[in-house]
């Protein structure tokens, strides 16, 4: 085993571990009973129970599909993302660690990762005629949150959305290009024709304002 390098790796992992642990523990709005039901369902998925996978699907599909649509801006692509996410749930449920965060956060993280991967792959194609980027700030119409399927309480979901909408437009655009299009700071700067420093400042200022709005 490669001992000399441990110290560095271990401490990075430790820092990242702390970061991950904190990432959704404080996110508001998940009802406690929904979390318990989620965990039980995931445990049954891990045992290979198709009913349980259906349960997880029914519970979370609206937010998963909503996020996939928001990123892909295309129904068929978004459906592909959904398929991949639930395949991953089925394959990896045995390794899902309930102490590391909510099932909802796990699903949404997978959804974002899969969707951004697809976008990036598409962008890498030489013949991609239209960059999907220009639609960054165009919102998909916002249907009411279905009472029987809510995961995030209507109140806190609304609060997050309101906080994002309330940001100064340049900050919001920079944040959306990063999060929903998976662009790096350099790509964002290129897209907006702004200096790197400006992009960095906008993203930071925007996230700090969101933080304030969410944890007053």
């Amino acid at each position: 085993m490669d001992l000399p390098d441990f110290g560095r790796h271990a401490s990075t992992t430790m820092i990242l571990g702390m970061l991950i642990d904190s990432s959704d523990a404080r996110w508001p709005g998940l009802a406690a009973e929904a979390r318990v039901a989620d965990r039980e369902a995931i445990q049954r998925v891990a045992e290979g129970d198709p009913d349980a996978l259906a349960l997880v699907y029914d519970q979370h599909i609206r937010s998963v599909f909503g996020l996939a649509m928001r990123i892909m801006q295309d129904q068929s692509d978004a459906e592909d993302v959904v398929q991949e996410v639930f395949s991953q749930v089925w394959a990896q449920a045995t390794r899902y660690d309930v102490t590391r965060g909510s099932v909802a956060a796990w699903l949404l993280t997978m959804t974002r990762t899969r969707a951004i991967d697809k976008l990036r792959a598409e962008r890498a194609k030489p013949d991609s005629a239209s960059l999907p980027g220009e639609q960054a700030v165009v919102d998909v119409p916002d249907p009411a949150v279905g009472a029987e399927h809510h995961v995030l309480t209507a109140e806190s979901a609304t609060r997050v959305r309101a906080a994002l909408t309330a940001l100064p437009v340049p900050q919001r655009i920079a944040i959306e290009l990063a999060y929903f299009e998976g662009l790096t700071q350099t790509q964002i700067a290129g897209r907006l024709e702004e200096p790197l420093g400006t992009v960095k400042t906008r993203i930071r200022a925007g996230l700090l304002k969101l933080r304030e709005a969410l944890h007053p």
Partner: protein
Amino acid sequence: MSDPRHEPFDGTSALYAIGALTAAERVTFEAHLEVCLDCVREVRSLLPVAHGLAHTAPPLDPTPALRARVLEQITGAIPAPSAAGHTGKTTPKTGAAARDTDRDDGGHTEPAGGGPGALFWLAASLVVAAAGGGGWYGAALDRRIVDLQGNVTQATEETLRLRLDAAEARAAAAERDAVLAIVTGASAQQLTLVGQPLAPRASARAVWNDATDMVFLASGLPPLPAGDVYQLWFVLPNAPVSAALLNPNDDGSATVIIDVPDTLSLPTTMAITVEPAGGVPAPTGDVYLLGQPAG
């Protein structure tokens, strides 16, 4: 923020939290995180905010056809919608893709981690999907399996690293305890070493007890070129005896616990020289620090 090391990373926490760094930029910033508590705190506070952006996407209902397609492709069954209450009803499919859905009569379930794992079942269902015409799903087969294997490896590594973290913490605690026991012991004696002209700001202290355990603490050691190492010596009248090699931290400090040979009677003169990596049996380099017993 006065630390000059932080300045180039000012504001980078936000980019890191939202995932707007390239892989190379991320690696550089993660190295900075190890030395900058301010940045660690900022990332910690911004990460949940960045994750929360997922909730700003408006929830949407897909077509019911998607539900059937997804669940059937994955599990080989289409359970009734759970909104209508949980039913144990499933529609078992024939073929290798079908999992054991026959739970109502006490049928067995795949034990987690035993027998063919989820990965196998997924692979099996993918093969069947591909054989049955496939479509996009069959085409995605290879990449998906590679992905999953990658994830499996990652999880194993992560588990290992977590264990290492714990081991490292325990080792560090044990070492602290040992140092404390020696330094605060009733029989503790000490010798001070003074930086020589090559290391004017360096200083060191050796503390030992009569159980022949010695703690050696140094600070202000200048950084050495690669290939050189600090070596500590007991300078006995006939010949110097190597005591330890020192690996200073970035800030020039070093701590080492030395098991003093009991043929050696303390105090003796002690010295630190710079030697080729790995150390040498007898000193050859310049003396950087020197300490001599009083009287």
